[in-house]
């Protein structure tokens, strides 16, 4: 195979071609030949390099330089500078993307990308890209060298724990399903990533779907299943589309279907869409949904490993759990177990959202601190505000204040602190956040998503929501805090499923760490963060108001009076506290008290 020291990729999308990219390709070849570089630099054409509006676009590797807006007259200069002298030509370099604007940026120093390693780097609609990155090599190894027991042992040795939130040891779950009697077994992937703020699974499924498919096939071999389902939420239509393409391609390459890799093992996969129900992320509710029923959880035992889909032994794992499997097989369980803490091995993806400068996806080994995540990787709080709390684990997680910033992130430590790992959502909150409002907000979400089957969750969360709403509206009473604590412990103990058991967590953790805010709302009728509508007022500061009328013109309820060039006044009886006046004012004249 010829070895080239550099590659030039020229965009062949219609827009770039119209702008002359193919002529550029020709001139590049000519010029490189002239300079005697024809054997060292290869020129290729490829689609989708950039946004094409700034075309023609070219990429130079191995540097990864992105050049735009070139004309054929620029090429000799470019070849001389870039390939003879090794200097990039700044005037044609594409501007680097704005900090923080991407969902998945280049990894920062503290990150280790295992599950996210291919996202954004390969074409998810081309199985050959995945194969080029050692894709399906793990499956080949497993099917030709390992027994199902060997595979299960490797997963056990790696220490992989379910990444969906519960953190149950994956190897053990596979062993239970393997040991269950019966010839009809199922493998299910839980892609119902309903936790608000979590979009890690979406990124993996959209960017590297085959890693999950390969993981599922290996799991199926380990437990003895011949049919699998990926249950994907309906709010992710692009994922469904990408998965269907990936599955079709895997079938064409005979990586799914009968006699995979010429062995006795056969397995096929199907995508099933949800229909908008958060509770269907709970494994028994998910199973009910695939069976065509209301997504209501049922008591366990029996666990799905024994009696799951259609009453048969079923292994359900999260997207990220499966995505880790091929790498564990290829690089060995010791490699995986070498990362993380004593009981939490490997890496975890997190979705940083909220009031942090750089939101987006990250993947870090367990044992990193919250401080490193928020301030080093996340860049600190937006608009130079103060850090107040971080909520981990989704709507059933807890809020942790600044004292916990040096907490090492792993399953046990987060639970001890009063939160949970959950699927990996992390919402950062600044000092303009009211913790009582946040607790009420999560309770509202849970109440809406409660399936209604069991009384503690259905009725208990409703009562808790009523109390929290009253408190935020300025009608908090003596005894409310104690009532909330009481209800919380009952709901946690008596609910049927994880949703109910976790529902009081935001309240319990905010009461533990921010009790003074509840007391301020109830006893002083004040909202320290100036958020709760009924407890705040908007006022115009006469010294700063110049009477530009901008606020009055934008007020949706015409609550602001004032003549041009005179101080304006807000009528608090009409004002709905929407905050638009403060947003539009260019003179900082609107105060919230």
């Amino acid at each position: 195979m010829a070895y080239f020291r550099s590659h030039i990729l020229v965009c062949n999308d219609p827009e770039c071609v119209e702008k002359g990219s193919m002529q550029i390709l020709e001139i590049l070849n000519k010029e490189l030949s002239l300079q005697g570089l024809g054997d060292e630099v290869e020129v290729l054409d490829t689609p989708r390099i950039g946004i094409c509006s700034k075309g023609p676009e070219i990429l130079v590797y191995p540097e990864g330089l992105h050049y735009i807006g070139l004309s054929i007259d620029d090429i000799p200069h470019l070849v001389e500078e870039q390939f003879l002298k090794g200097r990039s030509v700044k005037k044609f370099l594409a501007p680097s993307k704005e900090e923080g604007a991407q969902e998945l940026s280049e990894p920062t120093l503290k990150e280790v990308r295992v599950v996210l390693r291919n996202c954004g780097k390969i074409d998810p609609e081309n199985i050959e890209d995945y194969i080029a990155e050692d894709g399906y090599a793990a499956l080949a190894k497993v099917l030709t060298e390992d027994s199902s027991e060997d595979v299960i042992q490797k997963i056990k040795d790696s220490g992989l724990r379910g990444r969906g939130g519960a953190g149950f040891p994956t190897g053990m779950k596979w062993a239970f399903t393997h040991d269950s009697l019966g010839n009809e077994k199922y493998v299910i992937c839980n892609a119902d990533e309903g936790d608000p703020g979590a979009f890690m699974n979406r990124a993996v499924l959209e960017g590297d779907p085959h890693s999950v498919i390969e993981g599922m096939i290996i799991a199926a071999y380990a437990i003895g299943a011949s049919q699998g389902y990926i249950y994907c939420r309906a709010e992710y239509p692009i994922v469904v589309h990408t998965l269907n393409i990936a599955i079709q391609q895997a079938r064409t390459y005979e990586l799914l279907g009968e006699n995979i890799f010429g062995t006795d093992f056969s397995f096929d996969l199907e995508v099933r869409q949800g229909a908008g129900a958060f509770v269907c992320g709970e494994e028994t509710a998910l199973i009910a949904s695939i069976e065509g029923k209301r997504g209501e959880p049922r008591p366990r035992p029996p666990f799905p490993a024994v009696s799951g889909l259609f009453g048969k032994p079923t292994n359900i794992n999260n997207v990220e759990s499966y995505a880790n499997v091929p790498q564990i097989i290829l690089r060995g369980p010791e490699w995986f177990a070498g990362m993380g803490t004593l009981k939490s091995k490997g890496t975890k993806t997190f979705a940083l959202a909220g009031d942090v400068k750089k939101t987006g996806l990250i993947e870090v080994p367990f044992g990193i601190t919250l401080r490193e995540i928020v301030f080093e990787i996340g860049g600190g709080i937006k608009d130079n505000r103060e850090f107040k709390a971080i909520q981990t684990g989704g709507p059933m997680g807890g809020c942790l204040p600044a004292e916990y910033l040096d907490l090492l992130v792993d399953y046990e430590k987060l639970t001890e602190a009063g939160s949970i790992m959950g699927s990996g959502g992390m919402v950062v909150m600044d000092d303009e956040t009211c913790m009582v409002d946040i607790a009420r907000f999560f309770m509202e979400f849970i109440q809406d998503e409660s399936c209604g089957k069991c009384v503690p969750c259905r009725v208990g969360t409703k009562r808790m929501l009523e109390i929290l709403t009253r408190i935020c509206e300025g009608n908090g009473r003596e005894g409310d805090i104690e009532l909330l604590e009481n209800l919380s412990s009952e709901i946690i103990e008596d609910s049927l499923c994880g949703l109910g058991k976790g529902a009081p967590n935001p309240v319990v953790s905010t009461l533990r760490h921010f009790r003074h805010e509840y007391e301020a709302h109830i006893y002083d009728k004040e909202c320290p963060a100036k958020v709760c509508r009924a407890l705040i007022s908007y006022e115009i500061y006469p010294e700063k108001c110049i009477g530009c009328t901008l606020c009055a013109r934008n007020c949706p309820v015409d609550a602001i009076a004032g003549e041009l060039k005179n101080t304006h006044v807000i009528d608090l009886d009409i004002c709905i506290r929407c905050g638009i006046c403060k947003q539009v004012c260019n003179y900082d004249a609107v105060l919230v008290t």
Partner: protein
Amino acid sequence: MTVKTKICRDFIETANQAVDMYHSKKKELIPILMKVNQEIGFIPKEAMEQISSRMHIPKSQLYSVASFYHMIFTNQTGRHVIKFCESAPCHVAGGREVFDALRNVLELEPGETSSDGKWTLTTTSCLGVCGVGPVMMIDEDIYGNITPIQISDILAKYE
């Protein structure tokens, strides 16, 4: 035939096509309901009756399943359905002010359809684009980084 009868026959036809597409299998009930929902915008009574008759499932059970899922509508929706993300990261990023502005401009509460049949306002759970919150979806279009003053302009794009 009257317009009403024709519309009913279309509903029944859509239901039939959905049931046939999934070979009348009971476990495919949710995809069948979602298909009808996608074609018509909601599941009309006539379609529900047809599914019940074809698949031998009592109507009460069909409604029990359909009403459980947020993305299946059993009532007529407006020409444009607004789904506003009511999840924590969007809320923390200023979602509440945006939602209040939206409710004021439309004069609708979540779940309501405007009297001229143009808008239905609903809330949705996380769309998974939390990096650009607050987020809302109008039909198939997603809008991110919304501020209250942008609301009127965004809505004005739709007929």
